[in-house]
Each structure stands twice: as structure tokens, then as C-alpha cells.
């Protein structure tokens, strides 16, 4: 099977410049025409070809290319941007603040319960001292007080952990946003490369037709 380079031949994509006389020319060596290869910046399809062959001037648009990879990247970035917006809502709509408030109330409630259990435990202890309640009653109340204290500790732990989680969420959102911004810049840069313009004055000869596919790095 012939290779791509073989198929392209000697100068399918050429921008021929009237070359300046070189030392070699002066030495009487064979003068060569200068060829510039206009390579595809990505795996692309030629959407529009301004000319198949002819003289062009520097900056003149030669072809408009489309890249499926870039289309897919754009679609992915749009999805990411939309998803990021959904994730941010938790902060912008006050949902996180509401959750903070609930957690705060849960801690306060657990503290009140713990204080009450503690107070009850002390009363029972005093009562046991004067013989109005039994030792087992005191033990039961003490157990309840210990349980309340444990619940308070759990509520406080939840509050601290949630705060860390909220911070992590926010940081992750910031990271995603920065990454998205960078990727959008890259996309813009890559998209701009899809318009092939003549790099210099000369004769342009296309090696693909409209609708043709060109792999990244191969000549247009």
C-alpha cells in the first residue's frame, strides 16, 4: 500500500517563492523551489476550500477546516459549564447557609438536652443521698446523661465535618472553574487554527478536496 507521503508526491502542497539567490546558486548548484507544507492542525475535514490551485498572497484564506474532536470538546465544555452552574447553586441560592443553620440548631438542641440530663442526674444523686430514690434510678439517669453528651459530641462533629465539606465543595468548584476557563481558551486557540491562511506569497496547490479528511500533521 502506498504511504501518505508517497501519494502526496513531490509538491502537492507548495507555496513557491521566487527564491533569493543563495550561496549554492552562486556556486552554480541547481536552484530549488521552496515548498511550504500547510499541515492540518488536527484530524480535520475540509469544510471549504477557497482554491484548488493558484497564486495566493500572504494571509489570504485558503481553507476552512472542521474538527470532530473540537466539536466534541466544545460539547463537553458546554456540559461542564452547565453542570458547574448547577453545583454552584447550593452556595448562591443560600442552601448551604440553611444547612449551616440547621446544624447549628442541632448542636444547640443537643447541648440543651445534655445540660438537662446533667441537671437531672445531679438532682437524682442528691435525692439518692436523702434516700428518696434508689441507686438504680440514679444509674439510669447517669446513663441517659452520658448518652446525651455523646449525642452533643456527634452533633458538634457533624457541624465541623460539614463545614470542611462545604469548603472542599467550594474549592472543587473553583478548581473546576479555573480548568474550564483554561480549556475554553485552548478551544478558542484551536478553533482559530481551523482557518488556514497562506503563510507567504506563492503558488498554492491543494492536496485534498472539499469534504476530504486530513489527519493531524498531514498537508492540506
Amino acid at each position, binding site marked *: 500500500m502506498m504511504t501518505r507521503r508517497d501519494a502526496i508526491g513531490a509538491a502537492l502542497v507548495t507555496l513557491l517563492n521566487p527564491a533569493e539567490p543563495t550561496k549554492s546558486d552562486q556556486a552554480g548548484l541547481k536552484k530549488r523551489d521552496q515548498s511550504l507544507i500547510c499541515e492540518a492542525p488536527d484530524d480535520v475535514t475540509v469544510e471549504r476550500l477557497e482554491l484548488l490551485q493558484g497564486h495566493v498572497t500572504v494571509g489570504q484564506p485558503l481553507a476552512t477546516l472542521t474538527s470532530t474532536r473540537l466539536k*466534541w470538546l466544545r460539547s463537553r465544555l458546554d456540559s461542564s459549564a452547565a453542570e458547574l452552574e448547577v453545583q454552584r447553586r447550593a452556595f448562591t441560592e443560600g442552601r448551604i447557609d440553611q444547612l449551616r443553620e440547621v446544624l447549628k440548631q442541632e448542636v444547640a438542641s443537643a447541648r440543651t438536652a445534655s445540660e438537662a440530663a446533667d441537671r*437531672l442526674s445531679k438532682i437524682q444523686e442528691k435525692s439518692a443521698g436523702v434516700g428518696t430514690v434508689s441507686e438504680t434510678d440514679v444509674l439510669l439517669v447517669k446513663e441517659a446523661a452520658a448518652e446525651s453528651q455523646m449525642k452533643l459530641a456527634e452533633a458538634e462533629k457533624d457541624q465541623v465535618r460539614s463545614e470542611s465539606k462545604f469548603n472542599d465543595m467550594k474549592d472543587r468548584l473553583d478548581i473546576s472553574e479555573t480548568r474550564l476557563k483554561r480549556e475554553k481558551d485552548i478551544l478558542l486557540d484551536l478553533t482559530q487554527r481551523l482557518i488556514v491562511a497562506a503563510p507567504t506569497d506563492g503558488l498554492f496547490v491543494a492536496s485534498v478536496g472539499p*469534504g476530504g479528511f486530513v489527519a493531524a500533521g*498531514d498537508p492540506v
Partner: protein
Amino acid sequence: MIYPGTVKVPRQQLICASPDDVKVVDLKVQYGQVKRGQPIATLASTKLAHFRSQLDSLAADLEVQRRPFTDGRIARLEGILSQEVESALHALDSADTYSKVLEKKFGLGFAVLTDVVALPSKVVAAKTKLASAKVDKQQFPMKVKDMKDRIEIAVTKLRSGTEIFEELTKRMTFVAPGDGLFMASVGVGGFVQSGDPIGVLYL
């Protein structure tokens, strides 16, 4: 003889490169004259088949995401959350009334200190439950909106994926980019790597 300032224009050939790693399923022209737009070859790509399967999975997942809206789950959940608020409201009301009654009894000497000491914590606990239930109810429509928007994101992703798939599928039918002499470089059943030529068209 070539005069100074003149250039030799090479014969124009267009490389017909493969748009993917493909197998040539059908080759209509091996060597011969072709007209612009004339179908030359039919190609098949495994990568494209894999892409199709990914899109099918995405569509199936989308259907699962939609279910809560279609099978009445959302409406049921909304009802449960409203009930929870109602119930928390009743619990708070009862705790509050009970607390007031016992305090009055305690004031009149019909209740002991141990009965009233835990009352404030019960009221506070009921208030917290109510606040939590209210937040859940209040945030529910926002969460539903998030779900709907995520479905919309998935729909858009699926749509653009399908468009890309269709575009790539279209490329599997290779047509002549111009009028000229086409010379294939692969035969039927042959494999061509992405970017390698299927053939050359001499204009």
C-alpha cells in the same frame, strides 16, 4: 527550458484519506473516472461502533434519570416532606403545651422537679426537627430543578453526541471530492489507518 520567474505547476492530485481506522466494506471504483459526489467506498469503523454503544448507554441512563418525574416519585416525595413539616409542627405544639402544663403543675406542687427539668430540651429538640423539616421542604423544589437541569444537560450532551456520530457515520461513505481519475490504494476488506490514503484522485 524554464525561464527565470516561471514556476512548474505540478499535476493536481487530491489525496483521499481515511477519516478513521477503518475496514473497506465496499469499493465501487478501484480505478477509473469518477464524478464529484459519486460514492466510491463504504467504510466501517470499530471506534464508531464503540461511540454508538456509549451514546446508547447515555440514552438509557437518561431514561433512568427521568423516571422520578414520570413514575410519580417526585410528587410523592413532595407530599412526604409536607407531612414531615406538619408532623414536626404538631410535635412542637404538643411539647410546648406539655411543657407549659407541667410547669403550671410544678408551680402548684403537683409535679416534681425531675419531671420539669428535661422539658426545655424536648421543646428545643422539637423546634430543631421542625427547622430541619422546613429546610428539607424548602430546598426540595431547588433540588428538583437541579435534577431537571442535569437531565437537560444530559439531553444536550446526547444530542450533540448524536450529531457528531451522524457526521462521522456520513464520512463512512466515501465520495469523490471532484471530477477526475480515481485510483484506489486499498481493496475490499482492507484496513486503512486514520489519515492514510484510500486512494488518489487525479484531477
